[in-house]
């Protein structure tokens, strides 16, 4: 039975059924097979419970906030401001791109939103200035992945919602690894730019910078508001998201960058993304119910116990599984499918769940840029039509090595992720 349900799900996924329904259909069928007609009476409550979480509420709010910022072009002003500060450095456009990715990641929890925003702004400009195509595509696709490592992070909210680990702790744990990765990207960009001898742009004058600062001031308030609020314990991540939504909406309306009439498309596209994520959760909870009834996690723990697997061996094994799954599935699906099975094992063999969340998130960043299903690769293709998927992927390879280096660092030195949450507590 256990093998059968996993084979069925894989089969439905491969023939192109949406992830949410593949899981839901197999889950519901499994319930009927195991519980008979009882499944019919129980399924509504299972679905109801799957959506009954205040932590999950943060997901639509962060999505909505990012969409408001993008549609009102507040995010574009942020990019222009950073650009006016560092554009004239060697590889300045690349540096501005990385810094913007890190900065926008501190507002938005989504890597795809980050890559899409920076892609539209930076890619045409970089190509025009003679930057190598592969480098440009790779930088933007990989830079965008910072979105889920630097808090707020949708995948960490999911992790927290599924495991009851404090989302605040998870967010803070991502900060230092996120900054290290940003630093690696910056260093590589400078080295690459010096080697290629890219033309530098003219330095912006101070009045130009002041103007860019004024225009971007609306957006610059957000990271300290959202992150500072969580960090200082003023509000929970969900509340921070709500405050961020209302603030960015007010900013967009007051600065006349968005009219009430143009709000509906923003709401619709936010709802579309939200429904995509949360319906996968509904499907996965149905599926997870069957997995739990079949005692899959317990059997895996027993199996691993007999093998006498050390925590580090387990982590490496899981990383390999994640990277494999990441080729075919996107972040939400992988997290929701695997975590309920993996999490009990983590606790059983004594791996810190916060530390593991950071390791998992870096793995999920790989999932975003590995073909055939790497969402950020498609984002770049959406911006530059003649870019081939292979070209973008080749561009991300050097950045993947840097990400791998950070992953290894985080595994070897757990303090990189655990020290800051410990200090804040």
């Amino acid at each position, binding site marked *: 039975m256990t093998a059968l349900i996993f084979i069925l799900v894989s089969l*439905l*996924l*491969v*023939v*192109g*059924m*949406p*992830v*949410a*329904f593949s899981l*839901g*259909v197999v889950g*519901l069928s499994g319930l009927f097979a195991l519980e008979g007609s009882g499944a*019919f*009476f129980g*399924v*509504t*409550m299972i*679905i*109801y419970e799957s*959506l*009954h*979480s*205040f932590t*999950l*509420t943060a997901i*639509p*709010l962060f999505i*909505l906030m990012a969409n408001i910022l993008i549609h009102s072009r507040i995010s574009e002003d942020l990019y222009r401001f950073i650009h006016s500060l560092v554009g004239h450095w060697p590889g300045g456009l690349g540096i501005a791109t990385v810094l913007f990715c890190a900065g926008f990641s501190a507002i938005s929890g989504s890597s795809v939103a980050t890559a899409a925003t920076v892609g539209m702004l930076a890619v045409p400009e970089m190509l025009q200035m003679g930057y190598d195509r592969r480098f440009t595509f790779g930088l933007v696709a990989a830079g965008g992945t910072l979105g889920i490592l630097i808090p707020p992070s949708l995948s960490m909210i999911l992790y927290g919602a599924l495991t009851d680990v404090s989302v605040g702790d998870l967010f803070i744990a991502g900060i230092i690894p996120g900054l290290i990765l940003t630093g690696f990207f910056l260093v590589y960009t400078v080295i690459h730019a010096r080697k290629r001898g890219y033309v530098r742009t003219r330095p912006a004058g101070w009045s130009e910078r002041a103007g860019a600062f004024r225009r971007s001031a609306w957006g610059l308030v957000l990271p300290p508001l959202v992150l500072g609020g969580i960090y200082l314990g*003023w*509000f929970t991540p*969900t*509340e921070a*998201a*709500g*405050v961020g*939504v*209302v603030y960015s*909406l007010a900013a967009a309306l007051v600065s006349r960058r968005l009219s009430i009439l143009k*709000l*509906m498309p923003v*709401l*619709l596209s*936010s*709802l*579309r*993304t*939200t*429904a*995509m994520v*949360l*319906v*996968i959760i509904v499907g996965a909870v149905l599926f997870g119910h069957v997995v739990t009834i079949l005692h899959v996690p317990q059997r895996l723990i027993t199996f691993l116990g007999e093998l006498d697997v050390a925590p580090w061996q387990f982590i490496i094994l899981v990383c390999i599984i994640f990277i494999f799954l990441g080729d*075919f*599935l*996107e972040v*939400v*699906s992988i997290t929701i499918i695997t975590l309920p099975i993996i999490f009990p094992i983590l606790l059983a063999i004594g791996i810190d769940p916060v530390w593991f969340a950071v390791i998992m998130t870096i793995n999920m960043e790989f999932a975003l840029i590995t073909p*055939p*299903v790497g969402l950020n690769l498609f984002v770049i293709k959406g911006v530059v039509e003649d870019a081939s998927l292979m070209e973008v992927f080749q561009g991300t390879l050097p950045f993947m090595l840097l990400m791998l280096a950070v992953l290894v660092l985080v595994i070897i030195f757990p303090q990189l992720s655990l020290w800051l949450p410990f200090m804040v507590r």
Partner: protein
Amino acid sequence: MSKSVYIKAANPLWHRLDNGLLQLVTWAARLGGLMLLMVGLFVLYEVVCRYVFQSPTLWVMDCSIYFVMWAVLLGSAYTMRTRGHVLVDVVINKISPKKRRVVQICLHTVILAFALTITAAGVHSCVRAYQMKELTMSALYIPLYYPMSSIPVGFGLMALEELGTLFNLILFNNSDIRRKEKAHS
């Protein structure tokens, strides 16, 4: 003649039904979108109450959860129509259009059966909750069927949407991608 014009001429009744369905799903999604925005306002109100008036509310947390639940389920059919639910399309894109149509008809039939089952189960549970006067297990004691009825409504909409897709596929050999373009325009 483009395909949609052809369908309009060949079967005006179906064309009108399909258009009506599109309107229904889109309006449901608009309502859902507004609910998301309201959740943002609720949460801000909670923060203000806690810090300014020193009195946290009892209803914000529960209302936010129920609003998100309703929004997601109202928006799921629209997400189907606009092909927003993620899927693995590497394999399906490689096979011939003829075979792809057969596979799609099978998949949509399975999803239709799934959505119908949950709609029926949802109606059953809501009617029972209404008859037994069940309340939500939270600070906010409201009838359980208020939030729970989002499940039969949402899955009912999804079932209708799947039915529309199937009709298009079977009667007119019209791929669901064309329907997506219509929804976006």
